């Protein structure tokens, strides 16, 4: 049976492979290791960790969620803001529209978030009124 490796080590291996452009082979290896060590449930967490490690190396992949499609000017502004805030050399943002956020936008980055959606504001208000 294969030696059990920590999530951090597996994520570091995956991140290094992605950075070197050899992701496919690494993903296959990782999948085999997770099956052998019966840790399939941890796959999502390892991917998150790998994203985090990539971000630490200056490669950020994130998602922007908004109620409506954002204009190209807005997308460009967000791209610049994320680059400035994270100090990364390469930023890739995937844009997604989700009417359930009601308005505003949320940027989801590895381990970080900027949530300016109306939905979150409403949740905060709900909690505040509950406490009072």
């Amino acid at each position: 049976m294969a030696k059990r490796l920590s999530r951090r080590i597996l994520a570091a291996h995956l991140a290094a492979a992605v950075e070197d452009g050899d992701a496919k082979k690494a993903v296959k290896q990782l999948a085999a290791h997770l099956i052998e060590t019966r840790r399939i449930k941890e796959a999502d967490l390892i991917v998150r960790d790998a994203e985090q490690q990539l971000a630490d190396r200056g490669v950020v992949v994130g998602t922007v969620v908004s109620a409506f499609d954002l204009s190209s000017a807005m997308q460009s502004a967000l791209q610049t803001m994320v680059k400035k805030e994270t100090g990364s050399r390469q930023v890739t943002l995937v844009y997604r529209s989700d009417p359930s956020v009601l308005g505003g936008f949320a940027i989801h980055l590895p381990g970080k978030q900027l949530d300016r959606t109306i939905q979150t504001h409403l949740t905060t208000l709900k909690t505040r009124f509950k406490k009072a």
Partner: protein
Amino acid sequence: MTTLSITELSKELRHAIEQLETTGSLDEVGIVMRVGDGVAWIHGLHSAGYSEVLQIETDDGIVEAFALNLLEDEIGAVLLGRDMGVKAGQTVRLKGTVLDVPVGPELLGRVVDPLGRPLDGGPAIKTKQRGIVEREAIGVMGRKSVHEPLMTGIASIDAMFPIGRGQRELIIGDRQTGKTALAIDTMINQAKQKTGVINVYVAVGQKLSKIARLVERLKQEGVMEQTIVVATSPSDPASLLYLAPYSGTAMGEYFRDNSQHALMIYDDLTKHAVAYRQMSLLLRRPPGREAYPGDVFYLHSRLLERSAKLSDDLGAGSLTALPIIETQAGDISAYIPTNVISITDGQIFLETDLFYQGIRPAISAGLSVSRVGGAAQTGAVKAVSGSLKLGLSQFRELASFAQFGSDLDASTKQQIELGQRLTELLKQPQYQPMSIWQQVASIAAVTRGYFDEVAPSKVKDAQAALLTKLWADHKKDMQELEKGGKPTDELYAVIEKTARSVVKGFAG
């Protein structure tokens, strides 16, 4: 630095903060991996600190938790509420603060939970200040030795095991031996004697009906206006039971730090240790003796170390602690009792046998001790109770020995009779704390031999008659005695004369 430059600096700082607020920065987030039994395991949030508050976004609003296990890959956080709405995958943020609770005089007369939320149906509590729940204890230089008395109004305690302001005195005994009753009487005495001491009663996992009865009684006795009740019931999550004593202490510390005196009652720390054991086992910390975690001693030592008498430079306030521990079958050598005994400055041990013999409060003279209270004892009480503890301990030994034979020498017989009178004298009904002059006159009447002719069974009646007559005929003298100074020969003469005059009706 000039005043002008400080003003400029302050302006710049404010401007910088405003700019930060408007630009909006990225928050560090994590996700809930799994949740159950009041514990959430969180992935991410690498900069979370120990005991830091985390906010979990649920469909039903934000649920707070605090980080207790910081591991390589995950964080174990204990939820400060129900875990029903918390699900795997939900976003978690750092609140950026450690736990704090509202503190201040606005809390007086209120019943609150360990997070400072009202439980008495009253209006929301708005205080000017908040206190850190897990605050570090004051250092050596900030303290002063215990020297002022904290009168409990219970003659046997004030005479034999005096408690000083800033002391930690443990109340220990089996279930139904009157532990809470002692604590309540002490609180009532603070109001009756107008000592100005603020009471903070912390109920850890107590039945809500019991807490309701207690609050009602405190209201009846007029004590509630100077009391804060921090209540948790057995149905509350273990996290709240764990936090209750620390929150209560934060509330008490406000008064201590503002040159006032506060009395903490932790009812009881056995349940507190059990709640912490539950949390620790769910957080998968290694179990030790009796399945308690390795740091269960630190759990109570860091709590009780916050009770102190402050130095004059810090305002000379005090925080006195009366922790309660419940034993099983009188076993004071169990794990938690020995821990707390070694932390506190003495203990009042209540015995089941004495309780069922009708000796109430059922204080064991042999096993109880006050290690620092002697220096703080009221002069008047100290003057009359010098040999009381020894006499009573010897009597209880002699009494059991005397059961085997009837031929006793005169001195033994005398000692037994004195012991019987003392035992009767120190019996005291609940909710009737005694003032200083009442204690001094009663004890002097027995220890100085004025009641030698009174039959032990009639001592209480003789005592009542003596106190009534003294107050009626010598009110001024008794008011003088109430000031606490050592009684003069003239005062002793007044007590003796009155005692001799009332004795006739109660001779054995």
